[in-house]
């Protein structure tokens, strides 16, 4: 039997291009080591043409953020009839938009921090500004202001009082046309990676910033946070978190792999923040780290994700 042909899709125009190029390069190396025939596409307007020429047995999507993670590439691959890794179009759309994600979570009775969401027009044409005092009272300060499109820590700001909201909103609107204002919850930040055709939770990773919580640069800079895996949790709490994460994964309709970010407040209450359908594959990413903690090496991880895609067809 000839070698299976896999197209690795990486790059693209998203602000996370850099991370995606790194993820793609690592995935390429792993697939070659596993004996696949690999074609790498740095995604641009020629992507569909290239895919039609290559006719791969499957596509490994190593893209993050816009286009790659929001259902766009998935839709095109569906049309071309090429199986691909990770979630399908609908869950990709749902998870890329934090507002949509949170509405679905709420509808399914899954706890998520209280929030309000707006698009630009709400402020520019409907006078949403006048609701800000109400929101301030409802959520209490500080308020976390985020662009709805997930996939990057960029654009996330904290407003400690009402006067800080305009600048925080302008920043968040620089990254998306829709933003959410979310109640700030102090607690442990936990990342639960999910893997497999029969989805299972990998060991929980606790992200512990070495400096002030508010310092986002620190949180996302190499060596500026500690990662504790498995997180220091009682077996009961860990089991609760794992089952909650699996419920989230299922509720949004995800498949193959993903990562659920959860906050645990001081009274052990759990709040789901977001779901990443294509978390990073770099040396410093949480998914490979969690996999490693249960003895799944990087190549093995890549192969399991790929097999989910190919068997899923």
């Amino acid at each position, binding site marked *: 039997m000839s070698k299976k042909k896999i197209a690795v899709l990486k790059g693209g125009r998203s602000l996370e291009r850099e991370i995606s190029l790194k993820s793609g390069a690592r995935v390429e190396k792993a697939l070659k080591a596993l004996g696949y025939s690999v074609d790498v596409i740095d995604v641009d307007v020629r992507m569909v043409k290239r895919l039609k020429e290559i006719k791969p047995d499957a596509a490994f999507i190593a893209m993050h953020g816009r286009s790659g993670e929001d259902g766009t590439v998935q839709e095109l691959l569906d049309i071309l009839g090429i199986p691909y890794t990770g979630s399908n179009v609908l869950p990709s759309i749902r998870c890329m938009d934090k507002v949509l994600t949170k509405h679905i979570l709420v509808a399914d009775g899954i706890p998520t921090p209280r929030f309000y969401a707006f698009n630009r027009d709400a402020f520019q044409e409907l006078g949403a*500004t006048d609701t800000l005092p109400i929101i301030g009272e409802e959520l209490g300060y500080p308020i976390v202001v985020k662009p709805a499109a997930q996939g990057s820590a960029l654009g996330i700001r904290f407003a400690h009082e009402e006067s800080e909201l305009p600048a925080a909103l302008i920043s968040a609107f620089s990254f998306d046309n829709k933003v959410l204002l979310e109640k700030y919850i102090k607690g442990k930040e936990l990342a639960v990676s999910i893997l497999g055709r029969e989805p299972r939770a990998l060991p929980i990773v606790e992200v512990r910033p070495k400096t002030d919580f508010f310092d986002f640069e620190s949180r996302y800079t190499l060596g500026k946070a500690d990662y504790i895996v498995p997180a220091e949790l009682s077996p009961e709490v860990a089991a609760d978190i794992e089952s909650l994460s699996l419920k989230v994964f299922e509720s949004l309709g995800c498949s193959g792999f993903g990562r659920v970010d959860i906050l645990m407040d001081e009274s052990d209450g759990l709040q789901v923040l977001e779901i990443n359908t294509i978390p990073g594959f770099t040396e410093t990413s949480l998914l490979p780290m969690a996999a490693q903690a249960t003895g799944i090496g990087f190549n093995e991880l890549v192969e399991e994700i790929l097999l989910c895609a190919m068997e899923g067809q």
Partner: protein
Amino acid sequence: MTRIDFDKYEEFYAKRTGAMRSSVMRDLMAVTAMPDVISLAGGMPNTSSFPAKTLDKITHEIAMHGAAAALQYGPTEGFDETKENIIEVMAEENTLVERENIIVTTGGQQGIDLVTRILVNPGDTVIAEAPTYPGAIPSFCSFEADVIQVPLDDDGLRMDLFKEVLGKLLKAGTKPKFIYVIPDFHNPAGVCLSFERRQELVALAKEHQLIIVEDNPYGQLRFEGEALPTLYSLDDDDNVIYLSTFSKILSPGIRLGWIVAPAPLLAKFNLGKQAADLCPSTFAQKIVNRYFEQARWQDYVDTVRDIYHKRRDAMLTALDEYFPEEAIWTHPQGGFYIWVTLPDYINTTDLLALAVEEEKVAFVPGAGGWVDGSGANHMRLAFCGVPEDKIEEGIKRLAKVIREQMVLYRALQGE
């Protein structure tokens, strides 16, 4: 419990490594470097105008007649011929220097690094302009300098504020290790230090026995107005260290710059350079030497100066036409950059994301010019690397995203 660090080598890093950081620009580089993005970001000299035939002839001659020396190690301070070339360049700025006071470096950047390496202990004070050259900050930080930044205006470093800062420091018994200034066509601010302020700064250095580090990579690129004397030429008390480079008058790829300094300092820079990289590239020096021998280097400078001049004009015209009246910008008489100040509610680091994603245009966010990341409402626009039509298009697109932010702000103010 396992505590995983992303980086298993973390325990090995020196303390100073923690102070080194990458810039937002680096992180977004992959997107801003896409071919369809109009980049007003990088200060890229126009290397495409360099005559290929000249380069071909020179490298051929070196290969045929001077290969052995060109491929061999050389003196740490550089070849005498290179120093003669430097003397010639500096004479053009009416600055007379001696061979004995010159060390050839690997680009101007190494000059900044060597000066900091030799002079600064952790916690020592360095004074710089606000904003300062974004590339100098990593050097200062990696040697754990305590950088105090003094604002500049259209005439360069604000001497009133500088004297205030200096007075406080001296009163507290803290002598700054050096004052780092870019007097000509400042990067990123585009301004020049006025003649009066130059005199005052040099006089203060003499009075208090301070070291001024004069970084002058753009001095030859004046399009209009009177040339101003270098601080080095105004100083009669050996208080100025002068840094420059061949990057803007010949090629940044050549990676050759220089330091001019009093002999005792130079001896230490020499030791620092031995430790860093033994000697500047001999091959690159031979290219420069032959080039200076065979061609009028000034002709090439005239060519690129003319290109930059036209591009600056195009950018100023476009700014006038498209930018909102709430924005103000500098009118540089030379160099590479225009510095724009926007309303203070606009964060240009966030604006860059919007500009790149929606309008495919890039610039350098202002915060890079401050050690503490302030100055977020400024932006640096480089006119050097992009032809006029693209400059106009780029400014037009940029104006669009700025206006979007302004409309949103007004809505958020309930207007």
